């Protein structure tokens, strides 16, 4: 039998379709983001870790390794312990308040009423306004002399002029103020999270609960809230992480005062490390947030995964 010679098969260059390969193209697209994170987050983080175990100050920029001495010292400092306590109080109280406001805000915004779209847009404002600007407005509202809150209460006859509270001067009231302002800033975000969550619950399930005899509260707390819990928890993790590390409201409104009553970790780290130039202790204070946040986030993520439905 005659064999017919097959023409030599042509081979395309190995690199000709290289961009069609998923792993190659994917790596190219992801590379800038990874580079960005490595350079702007990874390097400073490692630097901070090193600072925290060194004796580095801006007056004596030595890289001498001192082990955990800095951490031992800040833990013996009563101001730091007060700051730590404040940070937890500030974070959880403002998140809780924000969540409650967000939940009810979302329920109100779900009902159709004239002008709902405008209200929905306006409600985002606290979140969108630069915090520096908002803080100035709040500062005036809490001002010892010109407080519009006091003026309103005096005019309405709720309090007497002589007993008008000095909002930012009293340690407890000052803490309340920063909590309220932070909750005010956070609650539009909570509303958005709740709106997204509640609208994702199928109407059939809500109707079924209604026919099954559940009233408003039972529907909300036994059906809707557990169902949207994973979404809310993710929002809450964001809120906690941002609040725990935040220093802007405290910095702008009270400057940590009166007498450290509103000092939080981020603020103190900034004050010690940057303003006072004690970089190593500042780094140690700031890094103190890391294990706390890490534990909290890991714990919550595991909880969500277990609740996943």
């Amino acid at each position, binding site marked *: 039998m005659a064999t017919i010679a097959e023409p030599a098969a042509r081979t395309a260059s190995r690199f000709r379709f290289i961009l069609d390969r998923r792993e190659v193209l994917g790596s190219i697209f992801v590379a800038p983001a990874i580079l960005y994170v490595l350079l702007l987050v990874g390097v400073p983080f490692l630097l901070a870790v090193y600072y925290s175990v060194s004796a580095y100050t801006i007056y004596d920029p030595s890289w001498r390794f001192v082990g955990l001495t800095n951490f031992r010292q800040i833990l013996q400092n009563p101001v730091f312990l007060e700051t730590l306590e404040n940070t937890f109080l500030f974070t959880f109280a403002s998140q809780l308040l924000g969540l409650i406001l967000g939940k009810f805000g979302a329920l109100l915004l779900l009902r159709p009423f004239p002008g709902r779209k405008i209200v929905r847009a306006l409600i985002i404002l606290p979140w969108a306004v630069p915090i520096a600007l908002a803080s100035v407005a709040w500062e005036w509202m809490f001002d010892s002399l010109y407080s519009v809150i006091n003026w309103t209460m005096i005019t309405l006859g709720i309090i007497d002029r002589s007993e008008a509270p000095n909002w930012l001067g009293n340690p407890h009231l000052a803490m309340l103020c920063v909590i309220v302002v932070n909750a005010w800033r956070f609650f539009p975000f909570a509303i958005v999270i709740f709106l997204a969550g509640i609208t994702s619950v*199928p109407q*059939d*399930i809500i*109707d*079924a*609960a*209604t*026919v*099954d*005899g*559940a*009233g408003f509260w*039972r529907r909300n707390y036994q*059906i809707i809230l*557990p*169902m949207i*819990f994973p979404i809310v928890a993710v929002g809450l993790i964001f809120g906690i992480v941002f609040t725990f590390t935040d220093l802007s409201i405290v910095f702008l409104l009270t400057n940590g005062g009166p007498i450290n009553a509103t000092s939080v970790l981020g603020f103190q780290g900034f004050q010690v490390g940057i303003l006072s130039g004690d970089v190593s202790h500042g780094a140690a204070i700031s890094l103190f947030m890391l294990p706390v946040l890490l534990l909290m986030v890991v714990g919550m993520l595991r909880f969500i995964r277990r*609740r996943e*439905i």
Partner: protein
Amino acid sequence: MAAVLAQNIVKRFENVLAVNGITLAVPDGEFVVLLGPSGCGKTTFLRIICGLERQTSGNLIIAGDIVNDVPPRARGVAMMFQSYGLYPHYTVRNNIAFPLRTQRVGRAVIESKVDWASRLLGIEHLLDRRPRQLSGGERQRVALARALVREPTALLLDEPLSNLDAKLRASARQDIKQFQRRVGVTTIYVTHDQVEAMGMGDRIAVIDRGKIRQVGTPAEIYDEPADRFVATFVGTPPMNLLTHNGAHLGFRPENFLPKEMIRGGDFSEFSFRVDRSEYLGSERIVYGAIEGFDSSQPITAKLPAHGAEQTLRPGEWHPFAVRNKDLRYFDQDGKRTDRH
């Protein structure tokens, strides 16, 4: 006494009239099917019965009480939704127990009733699973158990089979019907599927554009349609309608036969042009036109699968006939009349 009595129920959504004066009495223990095309208002009517919507006007009476302004939880009706509406974060056990919990029933009672309902539907082995771990048919049973656990005055089912595949649907139809017989619960069943309606209903209410067109047993609906809508909505293929002087003459495809197949009795003869024929295994559907009559739809004849295929060649005219007792007449408004 009627378990559910609707008196001239009207529901208007802004400028849409969804339900346009429905009056219906459902006696105790009856299985009534509300049948109609999508958007005809049947689901809205069901939602009015269970209290998820408030009717614009009309009275709703459940077990002798006017319940117009009674909230759903106090009406004593249970509803099963198209997508079942199971609570995804609860186990099957807690899903079934939920309607009892809302009524603050004691723990022991809840346990025994959940037991009873799950045994009734054969889902005892699923009690500790969550809805997402169940198949479509199992979910449906759980939803049914949840609806029944309170022993409602009436059970409302909103297209309960539409999420099942065709095979499962047939067996689920059987299950629901048998089980309704056994429990004897008054049932109102909404569907757009005439096979479900014909197969399950003690009575069928055919609804179109918010109005009941006819209420009757499946046989009455099929054999004695009250108007053109019912005649053409029920039956596959639908009833053939010939227009003549504005009035209509109707006959079912299975009664439209080659003349030689008709033996005895009076019949009317037509000349039928065969256009094409479909072989469906158990039967043959022949499409065509009748000489001398207008018809918006092709005329169909349903014949035995074998026997006639040799003689009925496309494009040719054949003598066909219908027995006179199988002819139905409708006037210009589409209403049924005795004789043309």
